[in-house]
């Protein structure tokens, strides 16, 4: 148990990547914190592009035939790019590349990632993938409009916008992204397994780290499926193979393909696509758990159950993919299996929701901005999760699939909910990243606008789905079964969407303003227990911990431990350093006695 063996990896600060100049400090930086910020800014930037694209789509849907710059081609291009950017280039990159990078070393008590150079390479590769993606806006024919699922044969055929070049750029960009993610992912996993501070057992890790850890493993195992399908589709497109292309006509012309299977692509795509949902959701689950525990001053309820649920969801997420394909024409008998597995995954997910609620129960809830967003998350996630049960139940999916119900569902569960957590996390960790608080008043405007606005968008949207309005329609035109009033609904959704979009500018302003003018925060403004708040410098310096690494003595959730003076004990406080209340009067802490002894035992 000597310090030396342990320092072999994590304690060693390699001189070679100590920043010396501006460039090596902020541009070609190998510091996980700088890389995290680079990842975050890039992801938020490209996310804003996607936000604008969604606004354009909504303009067409809310007020059809009013805007001459939107035609069916560009509409589909907006849909596709919006979806792909949001899911992969924003959410995955921000949650894992941004928060993962920032929080992993700090929360587990390491000096940096174990492979800092690889980490830097990961960011620049990611940036390259973003550039290639955005470049597709400027090539002949524009970006692909095949829908974010990129289903062949139409994705590569004339008749779909971007079939000339856009699809190739998209596939190349995805392949580059996967390389970037794999570099980052190997780093995260290895760091979590190898570079934890002394005493940081797996079960003492904060749930944030658990979420990121399992999500990263999911990503490492799921992204190859996307890579395989991208490579094979690229071959079909560029050299005329027939992996996914059966004998077909293209706009009336017989083209030279035969025998391929479009459904095979769908299986590959969703074998990636469903775990992808949890690649986004699990880090969000983790982070929201920590935000709730900290701001409710209470230990996370049922920590073990929470960890098991994360692991179980991660495992199950690989055997539910075909629930996206109930009406795809696959072997219909698969429906039984996948409906069952899908509904089973609801159980661990429900447990997580219960445990968040039970964490709040008998807590001492500070309604800070992060907490507001966390509460908002519980609400939206419950809503989205429950509609997911409807779609997962195979026959209920029959009338609802490919309608706006699906769009509303996945935006609720995979758009709004993780974004709520992202905001909670940004408001929560911003003081550590910059040393300043974000402005509370602006934060409130941002929260209420986002929370109420998104609900005003997506609740009515479910009802368009019940009506049977199909998704990915440029215009509905006149039909005999959709009442005129549906258009009013659409218009109101668009108005809400634009309001929500504009509110985000308040947030962006708040970010920039607070970096310079925000109220100063100390090292541990929220009185949190986890290690990242225990650094002696804020923002933490290169190497994070000063001369010696922290030693972990307890789990991450010692909030309001009975008999202890403060209502939190940081993870690195040794048992003999815990300051007890002088003399306990007795009565109120009966059930806390067991844990109370903890301080005395060692």
């Amino acid at each position, binding site marked *: 148990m000597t310090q030396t063996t342990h320092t072999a990896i994590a304690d060693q600060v390699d001189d070679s990547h100590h920043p010396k100049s501006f460039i090596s400090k902020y541009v070609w930086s190998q510091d996980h914190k700088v890389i995290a910020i680079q990842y975050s800014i890039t992801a938020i930037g490209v996310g804003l592009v996607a936000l604008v694209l969604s606004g354009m789509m909504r303009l067409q849907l809310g007020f059809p035939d009013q805007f001459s710059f939107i035609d*069916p081609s560009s509409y*589909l291009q907006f849909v596709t790019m919006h979806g792909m950017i949001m899911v992969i280039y924003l959410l995955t990159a921000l949650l894992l590349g941004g928060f993962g990078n920032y929080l992993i070393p700090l929360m587990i008590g390491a000096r940096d990632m174990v492979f800092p150079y690889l980490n830097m390479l990961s960011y620049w590769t990611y940036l390259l993938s973003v550039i290639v993606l955005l470049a597709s806006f400027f090539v002949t024919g524009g970006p692909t409009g095949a829908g974010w699922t990129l*289903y062949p*044969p*139409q994705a590569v055929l004339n*008749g*779909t916008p971007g079939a000339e070049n856009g699809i190739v750029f998209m596939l190349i960009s995805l392949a580059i992204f996967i390389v970037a993610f794999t570099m980052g992912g190997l780093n995260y996993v290895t760091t979590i397994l190898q570079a934890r501070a002394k005493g940081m057992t797996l079960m003492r890790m904060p749930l944030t780290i658990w979420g990121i850890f399992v999500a990263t493993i999911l990503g490492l195992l799921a992204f190859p499926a996307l890579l395989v399908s991208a490579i094979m589709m690229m071959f079909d497109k560029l050299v005329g193979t027939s992996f996914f292309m*059966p004998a*077909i*006509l*293209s*706009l009336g*012309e017989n083209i030279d393909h035969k025998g391929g*299977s*479009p*459904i095979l692509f769908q299986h590959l795509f969703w074998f990636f696509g469903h775990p992808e949902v949890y690649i986004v959701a699990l880090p969000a689950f983790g982070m929201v758990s920590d935000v709730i525990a900290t701001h*409710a*001053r209470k*230990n996370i*309820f049922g*920590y073990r*159950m929470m960890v098991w649920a994360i692991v179980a969801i991660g495992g199950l997420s690989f055997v539910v993919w075909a629930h996206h394909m109930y*009406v*795809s*024409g696959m072997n219909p*008998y698969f*429906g*039984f299996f996948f*409906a069952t597995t899908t*509904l089973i995954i609801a*159980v661990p997910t*429900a*447990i997580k929701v219960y445990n968040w*609620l*039970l964490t*709040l129960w008998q*807590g*001492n*809830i500070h309604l800070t901005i992060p907490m507001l967003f966390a*509460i*908002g998350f*519980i609400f939206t996630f*419950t809503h989205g999760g*429950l509609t997911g049960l*409807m779609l997962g*139940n*195979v*026959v*209920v999916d*029959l*009338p609802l699939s490919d309608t706006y119900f699906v769009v509303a569902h996945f935006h609720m569960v995979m758009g709004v909910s993780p974004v709520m957590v992202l905001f909670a996390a940004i408001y929560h960790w911003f003081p550590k990243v910059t040393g300043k608080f974000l402005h509370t008043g602006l934060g409130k405007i941002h929260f209420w606008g986002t929370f109420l606005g998104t609900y005003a968008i997506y609740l009515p949207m479910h*009802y368009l789905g*019940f009506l*049977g309005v*199909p998704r990915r329609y*440029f*215009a509905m*035109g006149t039909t005999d079964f959709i009442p005129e009033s549906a258009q009013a609904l659409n218009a109101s959704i668009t108005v809400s969407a634009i309001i929500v979009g504009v509110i985000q500018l308040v947030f962006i302003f708040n970010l920039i303003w607070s970096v310079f003018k925000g109220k100063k925060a100390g090292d541990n403004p929220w009185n949190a227990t986890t290690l990242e708040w225990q650094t002696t410098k804020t923002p933490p310096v290169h190497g994070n911990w000063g001369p010696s690494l922290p030693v972990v003595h307890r789990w991450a959730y010692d909030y*309001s*431990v009975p008999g202890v003076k403060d209502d939190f004990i940081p993870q690195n406080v040794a048992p003999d350093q815990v300051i007890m209340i002088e003399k306990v009067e007795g009565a109120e802490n009966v059930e806390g006695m067991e844990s109370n002894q903890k301080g005395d035992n060692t």
Partner: protein
Amino acid sequence: MAIAIVIVLLVIGSLIFHYVSPWWFTPLASNWGAIDDTINITLWVTGIVFVLVNLFLAYVVFRFQYNKNRRAHYEPENTKLEGWLTAITAIGVAGMLAPGLFVWASFINVPQESDVIEVVGQQWHWSFRLPGNDGELGRTAIALISEKNPFGLDTKDSSGQDDILILSNEMHIPIDRPVKVLLRSKDVLHNFAVPQFRVKMDLVPGTVTYLWFKPTKIGRFEILCEELCGVAHYTMRGSVVVDSAEDYQTWLSEQQTFAQSMAVPLGDMEKGWELYAGCAGCHGAQGEGIKSLNAPRLAGMSSWYTKRQLAYFQKKIRGTDANDTSGQLMSQMSQLLADKAAINDVAFYINSLKPDEAAHSSTGDLSKGKQLFRSCSYCHGEKAEGNFFMNAPKLSGQHDWYLSQQLNNYKKGIRGNHPFDLYGSQMMLMSRLLHDEKAILDVVSYIGTLDKGLSK
């Protein structure tokens, strides 16, 4: 505090929205009441959970707000409570899943006595095929598809000879008989969905998928494509007409079999020439079109398109709108053609006419026109040469004044509005992309530049 109240209000608001909302499933028109029942069960279970969880959330947030005199309770876990919650959730989930699986089993097992129809999807149209008297659909192959044989039937397969081909966006089926719908695609993925029937399934090129239902209401129901199939995905509509048994028989007797469709002669040039004399007065001796008489150019028009339009005029599907005087005139004139054979002959003759290049005087913005034409080009072709397989007529060579007049007619619903104009509705949707007169002028001017060297 506010957040607790807002959450309660949102829960109440959602419930009110749910109950007063006029937006709900369209009335069921098939046997799939069981699907609606499953939806209701699921909705009840999930709805109750939604209300309970969020009211509890609001209560907790309200009850345990920060108070500096209070300390949070310390309780790492409560295995018993968590066990109970898990068990209750599992029961709820099983309660939703079990009925769902039973209904799914009945969805994938087609009743023995079902009629079979085949639905063929292509960008962006529907067509249909019935097995005919032998009850068996003939073999097909993509490679065999041609203008003469749009279904790609194998002529060597005898079971295909009596297949009934319905090359139109409209299908008829008899009421109260279960029907197994075989789904086939010629190009990309499509999805056959009729909201009132509740069931849907993708059409996957290279394989045949299926679904089944039993229509229980007489009427006309819209078919929507619900799997993204390219630019004009949203215009890929069709209809299923559910008929009484007698009406269905009447309709069926009017349809052509594959053998009959192959036997239609090419057309008689002599007879066509004779018949065309009646048209020449307005459309010109060479079919060049005369602006002062509001008569479009006919020369070189594909015969399939001429035939369809003449049939529309005859059946009062086109040219009935009060604002379309020349259309009304044409509708009367078309009655002069006695039968299908006459239409066939005159269309054949018109196709053979070779006029001079049309003079174009439109002065729109060509680069804007080119941009706008991108949406048209998928069906009408890069050179506006027309495409039988996309049901799109040739546009190049046509007079600019006629094109802009027709585009306006489509936009205003003067043309294409008739329920039996099965292709016009598509053009109505597309014409809305041209927001104003200027846009129409631009695109028509651009089309005018395309006929160089193309006119026969």
